[in-house]
């Protein structure tokens, strides 16, 4: 044995290897065996690269309602500059479940209304998910997709903004 090869290190090493192997094997096989909730972070996050792809582009759109009844589409890109992919921003990666999007509406309202003049404050936001089939070998911008080829699902309709900003 050398100075780096001590009985203590060997015992620690054996324990580490055993714990690592058990954790990884249990986490790795938990999902195919139908017990994905039993797999452990951070190991269970590393196995899903390009795990599925349904052939559609998805885009969240935000229709805002002003106090005087005007409606407009909100452009969130100035607040979300990180390129989540070649054609989308981070908010597009949000889960589409209504609970998550309600929290997002609250965030958007508070952020906008904090600085906006009273006449331009948002009263409610509708969120729709627009999807369209990808074109093989081409990245087609949303604006160039004909209306009949767009599939629009409204997830939240006029979700009210919080009354007061903190």
């Amino acid at each position, binding site marked *: *044995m*050398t100075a*780096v*090869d001590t009985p203590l*290190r*060997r015992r*620690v*090493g*054996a324990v*580490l*290897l055993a714990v*690592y*192997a058990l954790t*990884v094997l249990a986490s*790795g*096989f938990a*999902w*195919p065996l139908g017990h994905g909730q039993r797999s452990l*972070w*951070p*190991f269970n*996050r*590393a*196995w*899903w*690269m*390009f*795990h*599925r*792809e*349904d*052939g559609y*582009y998805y885009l969240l759109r935000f229709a805002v309602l002003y106090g005087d009844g005007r409606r407009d589409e909100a452009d969130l890109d100035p*607040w*979300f*500059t*990180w390129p*989540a*992919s*070649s*054609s*989308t921003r*981070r*908010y597009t*990666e*949000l*889960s589409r479940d209504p609970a*998550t999007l309600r*929290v*997002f509406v609250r*965030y958007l309202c508070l*952020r906008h209304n904090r600085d906006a003049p009273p006449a331009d404050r948002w009263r409610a936001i509708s969120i729709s998910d627009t999807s369209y089939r*990808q*074109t*093989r*070998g*081409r*990245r087609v911008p949303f604006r160039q997709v004909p209306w009949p080829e767009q599939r629009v699902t409204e997830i939240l309709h006029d979700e009210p903004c919080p009354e007061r900003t903190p």
Partner: protein
Amino acid sequence: MTHSSRADHWLGATDPLPLALYRAGFGALLCGECLTRLPYAKELYSSVGFHRSGVGAWAPPPSVAYAFVLVAAAGAAAISLGWRTRAASVVTLAAWTWLHAIDQINEKALHSVIVVVLALLALSDAGAARSLDARRAGGDAPAVWATPLRLLQLQFAQVYFFAGVAKLFAAGWITGSVLQLSLSSRWATDTGLWVASWIPDVAVRLLALLTILYELVGPWLLFVPWARPWVIAFGVSLHLGIQSTLSIGWLGSHFILALVTLYPDPATWRRVFAYVRARLPVGRADGMTAPP
């Protein structure tokens, strides 16, 4: 391999070179990633941004978020140079894990692998060779504890294997449709889109099957000496192909780095260094002047 030599392999002492090379490359890659994220720290990690993680409510003010990203970048640079390597690994692990926990909307496989790698580097003697720490200590250590290196080898092998298992159970991977659609998805690079425009379906299916086969069998063969060079060569080709066609950050570069540093016999790298050193026009690669 006898019981004793198997125990030596997993628990004893080993050549410090593989860990040192991996550490230098990983630190540089992570430093680059942190610097890329720095201009976006306000959106990604601060209380001004939107977060859906458990710790999102405790996201710091923008100035602190910028500081955290800078600390992670500086820590990664220190890891690469091998300066106070263990302390740098612990600091970078803490900073990166905190940032990673805040931004779960943008979370990718690459980011969780970094957490495990930093934890293993903190445990290892990765700064014992080819580092400022080694220079301060009077030279490279002749040997380091083998277990952290073996754990790193297992880490990359298990990511391959269980990614293969996930693809095996995913509808559309065996038929090649997931790969075909990915090449035209929002993750596709311009090269990926170009490939998708002409590649025949049968070729995509073959590539998909080869990917699954590699991910399921390759990680086991990485531990078989006669097969290892072939697995590494195939793996590097696979990652170069993926890296050029799909936007995956530095996942591909990281796995190529792991394949070429952590698994080969250290003697291979020593031969490469000797070859390069012999052909350097002046002095030697380690900064010492060659005798006349």
